């Protein structure tokens, strides 16, 4: 019977120490694992008869500037189409060496999604065939989705900073994670 607990137990049984923990919310299980094992876990979930997570729905990253040593989390959302079950995998990366192996050999759909992660967060996918920026201009030299960079165009002269929430004393939204 393929359900969240079964998947977690099998993964712990196969990979042991590499699985760090899990979190279940709204029916979806998110499994935290060690980044060195990402390809092995993905391959196992793809090949194993009982698992069969052969569809990668989503690949993205989140930046937590306060979690020192694990600032970037790369997350894969996998889907077993036959049993209708989603599974989320999360791998933590250090901001100073954000390297992780590319999943585009197992799931070709990861190709552009990894480029998007690189473009926005600077995650370096080792082995990716074409890791260049996909959405932003090629000349951009920073990674815009990281929390330290502002939203607005900094070269704009005609807007009043205080009124529009840039600089000044506004800090819209609190980030206490």
């Amino acid at each position, binding site marked *: 019977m393929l359900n969240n607990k079964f998947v977690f137990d099998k993964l712990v049984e196969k990979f042991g120490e590499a699985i760090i923990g899990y979190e279940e919310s709204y029916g979806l299980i998110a499994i935290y694992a060690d980044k060195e094992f990402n390809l092995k876990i993905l391959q196992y979930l793809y090949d194993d008869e009982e698992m069969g997570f052969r569809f990668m729905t989503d690949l993205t990253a989140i930046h937590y500037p306060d979690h020192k040593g694990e600032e970037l989390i790369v997350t894969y959302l996998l889907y077993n189409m036959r049993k209708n079950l989603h599974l989320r995998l999360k791998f933590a990366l250090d901001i100073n060496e954000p390297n992780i192996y590319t999943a585009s050999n197992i799931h070709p759909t990861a190709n552009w999604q990894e480029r998007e992660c690189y473009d926005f967060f600077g995650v370096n996918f080792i082995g990716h065939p074409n890791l260049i920026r996909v959405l932003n201009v090629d000349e951009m030299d920073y990674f*815009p989705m990281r929390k330290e960079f502002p*939203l607005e165009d*900094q070269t*704009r002269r005609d807007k009043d900073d205080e009124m529009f929430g840039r600089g000044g004393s506004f800090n819209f939204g609190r980030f206490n994670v």
Partner: protein
Amino acid sequence: MIYNKRPVTHNTNLKVVDMPEGYQGEGFMAMQLSKVVGLARKNSIWPLPFATSCCGIEFMATMGSTYDLSRFGSERLAFTPRQCDLLMVMGTIAKKMAPVLKQVYVQMAEPRWVVAVGACASSGGIFDSYSVLQGIDQVIPVDVYVPGCPPRPEAIIDGILRIQDLVETESIRRRDSEEYQELLNSYGIS
């Protein structure tokens, strides 16, 4: 198949464009050249729809049968800048797209007009972000701005009518004048 269940109506109220004032005689007529040229130009503007996003879909609705734009003379949409007069920029222009827009503008032949349709083309719209150009007048000179997000087809047609006013009253020497050259130089377009 009857889609519109109104009975067929024949338009008996024909609008005729008035002849410009001039001096008539037997077999000749003398009038200002600029008026004739203006009249001819304004009723046959060929637009280039530079549609990038949502405003482009409203433009498609404007070209459809309900809000027909072609009754104002803009029947032929060209997608090549070499053959059209009016560059209609509809939709958000990102910084990645700005050089492309400038190149399209440069390829157009004089006289050329530009209408910025929608809030994004006029001023960046709701997207005050690092990747969106805050208004196309940062890269090309604009004649008419049509506000709205997206503007209703009636508003787009109103913008075209304002362009027609500009076309009609423009001096035929404007494109060679110094002010115009200065304007282009300020954008870096020689």
